[in-house]
């Protein structure tokens, strides 16, 4: 059932005319949010002297939180809990209204609990974030086109780097589990909705409130610290840091809610007959990813709350003069930060492991190995954080053990390579757009993985740390693998999400522009990093000029490719060829439902009788 836990649904009156729920939407949310923020701002100004930085930070931070709370009140997020509190639970009709029944496009602007609506909201949100982050990347590369370029000043350059970083990190964390984890995953396991539909909507709208907060950083001096926001630098930075801190705190709460929701859905709501060894590998990957975020992200949230308290009330968590320590921040940040790399990576790789059997028309090579590989990455990812602190001076005697754990992580990662290679080996690849992503990942992730081994090595890291080499490495991993997987997933599931086929011609053009541009961009950056060019610096020596020029040309190619992809998505969504129910001949459950998908996904609950990758062999 989409929103009802139990009890019979009355079909007589789907839209309750007198309920407050029917009157609330994104517009009321924004009005109440702005009013709350304004009231908090002026109350704060009247209470505290705004001349002092601490007081100004306090007022700004509280105003940003007030916006978020006000927005959620205004859109109706708290009606359910309030009604529970007073013992008047939402009626069946109200729950159906929340599910968006009979509301058309307006449900995308409401607190809608239908997982398919939430999936589309995430998809559009992610595209906006990638667009903003990508635009900032183009500005960064434009400034680096020649040495001595003054296209933007150093302060703005620093903010561009910081905002590009955090925008892309947040976007990539949700790029697969947001749209596909919400829209596709429940149908894939034969569920009628997510386990907690109202929490599902809350996780999206919480994230939505963070977007204007992060954008507001530009008006308060930007984020001069890079996305890592190392303390005490972040404590000393201007008002824009408040926006960063509030964004991270909101995002961590949103992630915990989404993680609990998706994990519970997969554990408890699988279709009859879907034993664990019959669960599609994307579902396993997405679940592992969000479940990993549950214990990892709270330490990031704690680190930012401490920074907020240092900035707003005068605590000394990171101030060495009063007993604080910058190392504490590094620990809390990277205890989250390295698992977070895999939170981003695993769903993208899992999508491609889902796609490979469909287009190679051969069973997934060693399903068990794939699961063991994913589990191994999760286990080791919590034991490697201090490789980011080799040269920080913190316990050099532990560098060796952390080097070993970091290098060990290449073993389970290698298993995933073997699974993909084994799947396409002697298969008969159907070279459609989603399948191209598999080949792109094998190339990009190989380079990203091998250069990661260099960086895990203490002596090599001593030289390469803080250079463009590191930037190129993690872009090969996050963009070359995770984003490639997500784009392949979009091409693969586009027919199911929109009812139309993604235009192939523009899709191919986009793919080759992005992939060729990507290699030019980041191979050039590897060269500059190997020569010693530091990252996060607005200017550079003449010696790096050729590498940087090549990188900037590559960046423009990527940018053009992404614009073509955007055109392809928008054009296909509006006027694309109508998609058949199962255009790829895939065997997973989402392809058994027609478009538009029924509110409860299935007219009759499916029963699974075979594994999802039984191509070319008799059913078991």
């Amino acid at each position, binding site marked *: *059932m989409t929103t*009802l*836990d*139990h009890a*019979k649904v009355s079909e007589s009156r789907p839209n309750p005319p007198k309920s407050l729920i029917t009157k609330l939407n994104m517009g009321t949310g924004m009005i109440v949010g702005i009013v709350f923020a304004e009231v908090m701002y002026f109350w704060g100004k009247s209470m505290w002297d705004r001349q002092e930085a*601490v007081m100004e930070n306090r007022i700004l931070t509280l105003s940003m939180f007030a916006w978020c709370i006000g927005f959620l009140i205004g859109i109706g997020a708290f009606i359910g*809990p309030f009604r*529970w*509190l007073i*013992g008047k639970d939402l009626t069946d009709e109200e729950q159906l209204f929340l599910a968006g029944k009979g509301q058309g496009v307006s449900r995308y602007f409401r607190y809608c609990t239908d997982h398919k609506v939430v999936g589309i909201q995430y998809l559009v949100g992610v595209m906006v974030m990638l667009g903003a982050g990508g635009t900032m990347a183009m500005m960064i590369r434009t400034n680096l086109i020649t040495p001595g370029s003054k296209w933007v000043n150093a302060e703005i350059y620093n903010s561009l780097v910081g905002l590009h970083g955090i925008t892309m990190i947040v976007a990539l964390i949700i790029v697969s589990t947001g749209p596909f984890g919400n829209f596709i995953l429940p149908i894939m396991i034969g569920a009628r909705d997510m*386990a907690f539909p109202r*929490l599902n909507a809350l996780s999206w709208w919480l994230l939505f409130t963070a977007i204007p907060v992060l954008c507001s950083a530009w008006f308060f001096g930007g984020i001069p610290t890079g996305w890592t926001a190392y303390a005490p630098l972040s404590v000393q930075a201007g008002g824009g840091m408040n926006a960063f801190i509030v964004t991270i705190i909101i995002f961590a709460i949103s992630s*915990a809610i989404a*993680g*609990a929701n998706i*994990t*519970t859905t997969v554990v*408890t709501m699988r279709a*009859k007959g879907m034993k664990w060894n*019959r669960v*599609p590998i994307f579902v396993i990957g997405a679940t592992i990813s969000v479940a990993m975020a*549950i*214990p990892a*992200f*709270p*330490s990031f*949230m*704690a*680190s930012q*709350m*401490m920074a907020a*308290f*240092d900035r707003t*009330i*005068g*605590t*000394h*968590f990171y101030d*060495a*003069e*009063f*007993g*604080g*320590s910058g190392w*504490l921040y590094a*620990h*809390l940040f990277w*205890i989250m930060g390295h698992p977070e790399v895999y939170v981003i990576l695993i769903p993208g790789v899992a999508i491609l492991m889902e796609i490979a059997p469909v287009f190679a028309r051969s069973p997934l090579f060693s399903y068990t190995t794939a699961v063991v590989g994913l589990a191994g990455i999760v286990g080791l990812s919590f034991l490697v954080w201090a490789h980011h602190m080799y040269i920080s001076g913190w316990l050099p005697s532990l560098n060796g053990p952390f080097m070993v754990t970091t290098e060990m992580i290449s073993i389970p990662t290698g298993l995933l390579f073997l699974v993909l290679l084994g799947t396409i080996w002697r298969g008969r690849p159907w070279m459609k757009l989603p399948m191209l992503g598999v080949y792109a990942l094998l190339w990009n992730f190989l380079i990203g993985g091998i250069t990661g081994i260099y960086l895990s090595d203490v002596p090599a890291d001593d030289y390469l740390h803080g250079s463009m080499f590191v930037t190129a490495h993690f872009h090969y991993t996050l963009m070359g693998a995770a984003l490639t997987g997500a784009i392949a997933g979009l091409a693969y599931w586009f027919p199911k999400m929109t009812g139309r086929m993604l235009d192939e011609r523009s899709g191919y053009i986009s793919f080759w522009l992005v992939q060729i541009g990507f290699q030019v961009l980041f191979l050039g950056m590897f060269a500059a990093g190997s020569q010693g060019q530091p990252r996060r610096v607005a200017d550079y020596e003449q010696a790096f000029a050729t590498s940087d020029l090549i990188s900037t040309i590559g960046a423009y190619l990527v940018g053009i490719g992404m614009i073509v992809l955007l055109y392809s998505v928008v054009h296909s969504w509006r006027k694309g060829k109508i998609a058949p129910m199962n255009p790829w001949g895939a*065997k*997973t*459950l989402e392809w058994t439902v027609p478009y538009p998908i029924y509110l409860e996904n299935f007219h*009759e*609950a*499916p*029963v*699974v*009788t075979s*594994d*999802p990758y039984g191509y070319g062999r008799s*059913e078991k």
Partner: protein
Amino acid sequence: MSTSTEHVMHHDAPEVVGRRERLGVRLIIVADGAFIFAMIFSYFYLRNLNVNNGWLPADGHTFTVSSGWLLALPFIIAAISHNFGQKRRESMGVLSIVTFVVLAIGLVMQWSQLSNMPFMLAEEGGFEGAYASMAFFLGGANLLHYVLGTFVALGIAIRTKRGSSTGTHETWRLRTAGSWFTWLAISAVACAITTSFAAV
């Protein structure tokens, strides 16, 4: 993946929904636990580093050891009261009110402690050192737990009074709330143990 069309009920049984909600709450507890662990780790990390002897300055102030335990007590009583009540449903009416009142008192006590911290530097508007910062942070987390606990307890008290807390699904919900109250007590005890180690 082949499918067959065996017909099943569209509405899940209360036990199924109850187990689902319990798992969801347990996962949220894992997240909250990770947050509490991060704070306790930070406390002992800064205490053991004692950078520039700034953990607890020579003339610095601390909360009394007993205050941490005193503030954990309402959580413990509330957990016992609620879990006892959900096992003996006939006494749930009274015990749900007891749970709420105890948590409300704890909320006031925690607010009072944070409002009267002995280690604020009035002239600078800041804190004395790292201990003072950590004690404030742990107290703030306790306060947030009190707010959440009081909200849930108030809801249960009102629903019990209105007779809404009947049926299999509500029984599961009370059991799930019991897990939450038990976790709140455990985390408060963990914070009390932590703040018992103030001096280096």
